[in-house]
């Protein structure tokens, strides 16, 4: 309805007015003449215009791109560090532009905050306007119905009031909002389109708020557990713990669980040998401080949910059980030591640290450390590589070399449990002065030189690591998402349209019926629907016998179907 330059078109424009609550575009060129308030108004009007919403949407998708191509701190910090090491010139530039943290960067936040301000600034007046439209009545018939996208007319013997009444009845039956204005009946239908559209946009805000609240209130902790060990949900038990800035530590849900067994199976044959097939953590858990123990299985896609907290299976690996004897033959250390996988076949590395209880052959207190290298399936001696051939424990071998001295754990600096700091230690050597190292099969022992004791590789356990997450707001986010889809469907599949029926007595005393329909844009459904309405009205007010008044341009095909009939319903 843009160029309303003739009276006739202006009149049609009025009939089509308020078929939607979309803001009308104003030309961007007109700059405000007034002072500060004028500028603010102008800025607000720009921000809430469809054009700017469009540009902001476009910027949002554009701005999301770099984050998918450049490693992100929020996704994988190690990858970011690798990248930074490899690109020393680019890194400072990227850091300035916050390209390693795109989704929390100032500029990305600015785009979506502006968009959502614009969205709110758009929804509020539209809702108000729509409420007004719901209370008001459809506009009266334009003078010349022939100008509308779908039109029909005939002459009938029935009286004008009779026709109008019948038309209003038919329209009401089809759930048009109907009323009589002057010599015509005006009717409108499809308000759900607008309602759906508003619901969609409001749901977007709900989702954003829920997402933001979730980020602020969430907590996420990691815990590695060896088979047979347990965990109870307190802060000190976590290996690592992250939480949103509004998270309250005291609100951890009390529960505990024990990892009874971890089962991993892998494809044994064929080109996909080694591809994982099953990962299952069998656990016994108890809700609350002293709840009844229950059994459950946590799988990759199936977290255990305890009182809103979810426990996910994240990773797994091996923990060789080793025991260490001192010179006197006393067992001073026995533990399953979790090692970290370094490849898909679970070749693993780590450290065994004997911190106290050990005395050397002179009875002096000292500490032992071993570098451990483990393969669940060994290639075989002399086969060159010490890397694992298969992720299942088919031929487990543990390779060790040892140190004595100070582990440096007392220095107060936090230490990586999987790495040995041997700066204050001396390596064990064999008789030839070579570094002492040995490959052990389960049950085998490595003697330490000069009666320093021994270390035995007893057996293999598996470990699994879990992520324990609490994320409030997901219910709201999901509700918002469902409302968004429903609203969207309403907005895109429902048509808002108007129908007018005019009945007047002609000069010869015969009633002339005119019907016309108008939608948001041309649509194949509209003429069809008008045809059905006309057909129904025609049974009440049939064509007068002397009818000669069929419009010339309607001499068309005479076929039973409209000549072209694209996919239904999706039209505006």
């Amino acid at each position: 309805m843009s160029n309303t330059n003739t009276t006739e078109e202006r009149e049609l424009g009025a009939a089509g007015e308020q078929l939607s609550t979309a803001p009308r575009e104003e030309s961007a060129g007109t700059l405000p003449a007034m002072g500060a308030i004028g500028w603010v108004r102008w800025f607000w009007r720009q921000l809430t215009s469809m054009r700017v919403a469009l540009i902001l949407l476009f910027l949002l998708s554009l701005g999301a791109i770099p984050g998918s191509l450049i490693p992100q701190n929020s996704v994988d910090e190690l990858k970011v560090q690798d990248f930074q090491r490899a690109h020393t010139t680019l890194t400072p530039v990227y850091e300035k532009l916050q390209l390693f943290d795109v989704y929390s960067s100032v500029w990305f936040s600015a785009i979506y905050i502006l968009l959502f301000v614009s969205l709110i600034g758009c929804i509020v007046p539209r809702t108000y306007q729509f409420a007004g439209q719901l209370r008001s009545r459809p506009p009266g018939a334009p003078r010349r119905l022939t100008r509308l996208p779908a039109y029909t007319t005939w002459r009938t013997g029935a009286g004008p009031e009779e026709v109008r009444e019948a038309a209003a009845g038919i329209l009401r039956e089809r759930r048009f909002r109907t009323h009589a204005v002057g010599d015509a009946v005006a009717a409108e239908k499809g308000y759900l389109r607008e309602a759906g559209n508003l619901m969609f946009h409001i749901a977007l805000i709900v989702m954003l708020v829920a997402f933001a609240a979730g980020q602020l209130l969430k907590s996420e902790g990691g815990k590695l557990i060896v088979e047979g060990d347990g965990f109870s949900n307190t802060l000190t038990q976590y290996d690592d713990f992250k939480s949103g800035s509004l998270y309250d530590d005291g609100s951890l849900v009390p529960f505990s669980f024990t990892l009874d067994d971890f089962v991993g199976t892998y494809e044994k044959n064929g080109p996909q040998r080694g591809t994982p097939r099953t990962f299952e953590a069998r656990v016994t858990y108890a809700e609350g401080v002293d709840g009844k123990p229950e059994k459950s299985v946590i799988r990759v896609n199936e977290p255990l949910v305890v009182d809103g907290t979810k426990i996910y299976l994240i990773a797994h690996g091996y923990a060789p059980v080793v025991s260490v004897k001192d010179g006197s033959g006393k067992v001073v250390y026995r533990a399953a030591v979790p090692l970290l996988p370094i490849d898909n076949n679970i070749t693993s590395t780590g450290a065994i640290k004997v911190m106290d209880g050990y005395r050397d052959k002179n009875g002096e207190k000292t500490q032992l450390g071993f570098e451990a290298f483990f393969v669940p399936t060994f290639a075989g001696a002399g086969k060159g590589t010490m890397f694992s051939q298969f992720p299942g424990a088919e031929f487990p071998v543990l390779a060790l070399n040892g140190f004595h001295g100070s582990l440096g754990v007392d220095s107060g600096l936090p230490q990586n449990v999987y790495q040995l700091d041997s700066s204050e230690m001396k390596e064990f050597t064999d008789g030839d002065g070579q570094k002492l190292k040995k490959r052990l099969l389960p049950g085998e022992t490595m003697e330490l030189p000069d009666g320093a004791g021994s270390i035995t590789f007893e057996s293999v356990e598996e470990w699994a690591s879990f992520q324990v997450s609490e994320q409030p707001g997901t219910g709201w986010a999901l509700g918002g998402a469902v409302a968004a889809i429903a609203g969207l469907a309403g907005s895109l599949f429902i048509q808002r349209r108007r129908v007018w029926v005019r009945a007047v007595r002609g000069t010869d005393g015969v009633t002339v019926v005119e019907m016309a329909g108008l939608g948001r844009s041309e649509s194949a459904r509209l003429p069809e629907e008008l045809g059905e309405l006309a057909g129904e009205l025609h049974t009440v007010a049939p064509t007068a016998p002397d009818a000669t008044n069929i419009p010339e341009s309607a001499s068309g095909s005479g076929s039973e179907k409209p000549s072209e009939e694209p996919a239904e319903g999706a039209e505006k």
Partner: protein
Amino acid sequence: MNLAAATNESLANTSNVLIYSSMAVYTLAFFAHIAEWVFGSRSKVGRTSAALAAGPASAAPAVTARVTGKGGATAVLDRPKIVTRSAAGTRDVPDGPGAAGGTFKGDLWGRIAVSLTVVAFLVQAGGVVTRAMSVRRAPWGNMYEFSITFSTVAVGTYLLLLALRKNVRWMGLMLVTTVLLDLGIATTTLYTDSDQLVPALDSVWLWIHVSTAIICGAVFYLGAVGTLLYLFRDSYENKLANGGSPGAFARSVLERLPAAASLDRFSYRVNAAVFPLWTFTIIAGAIWAGDAWGRYWGWDPKEVWSFITWVAYACYLHARATAGWKGRKAAYLALIAFGCWLFNYYGVNIFVTGKHSYAGV
């Protein structure tokens, strides 16, 4: 998952044979479509439709509404007829006569092409189903499987629209060509032996999320074809309206296509119809990610590009409702949006590593 349910080799081989056979039949359909266009180019009907392009608005096509009133059997002539006219500001150009150009021979070849496409579609669908049976799971574990399902759905949708008597035959040649391209890439570079799934993919959400993703992609593709042809046809109509004369080849091809307004409407409807499904796909993916990885949204590259695609389509829908952005500008946005979808599929799966690393290539 049951380890004993080893993949069934012979079913997998059957599947491969069916896929290759469907390619052979699609190739025949391709040549039949070529014949349709060649015979259609000799038509005179096309010429006249081109002449109409510059005609006045009074040439609005008249449509008789089908009336299904209770009265039933009165003669059609007695019924009031519905006159339609285009909304202000749109060109009143009738649709072209189609690839066959109204010629008998062209139409015959066109029908042969469609029949062959039906056969190829059935064979290809058989290939997808046997593949699924051979692995006893949804056939969507790697890019080979995505690709063969993708083109099956695209052709299926096209045939469905034809069966519903929608005017879509104009896209036959383009569709068959790209299906051959898709299957060619699938069977050569993307081929992966039939196998079970890694545990991360073993979930009901695989059925829900991946199937809707494939449907969306296939239907967005049909929309993109419509948009692309709209742009060509629209500049052709513009040229005619401004008194220019397009080249002989362009004229011969473009005059047979539906009017720009029809193509535009077609692609809008198709895109608008799947946009809610695409929204659902992303949300279903987020729910699945919540179960599998312990977070709903983690800005993984696949997630990012799905989001970008979604925003790009929202842009397109907005553009259509915004004065000054309707028409060609909106169409460019639709093509960009589909480009995002394509990049999300090929680009992200092959070149970018993320948690969605199951491409099998």
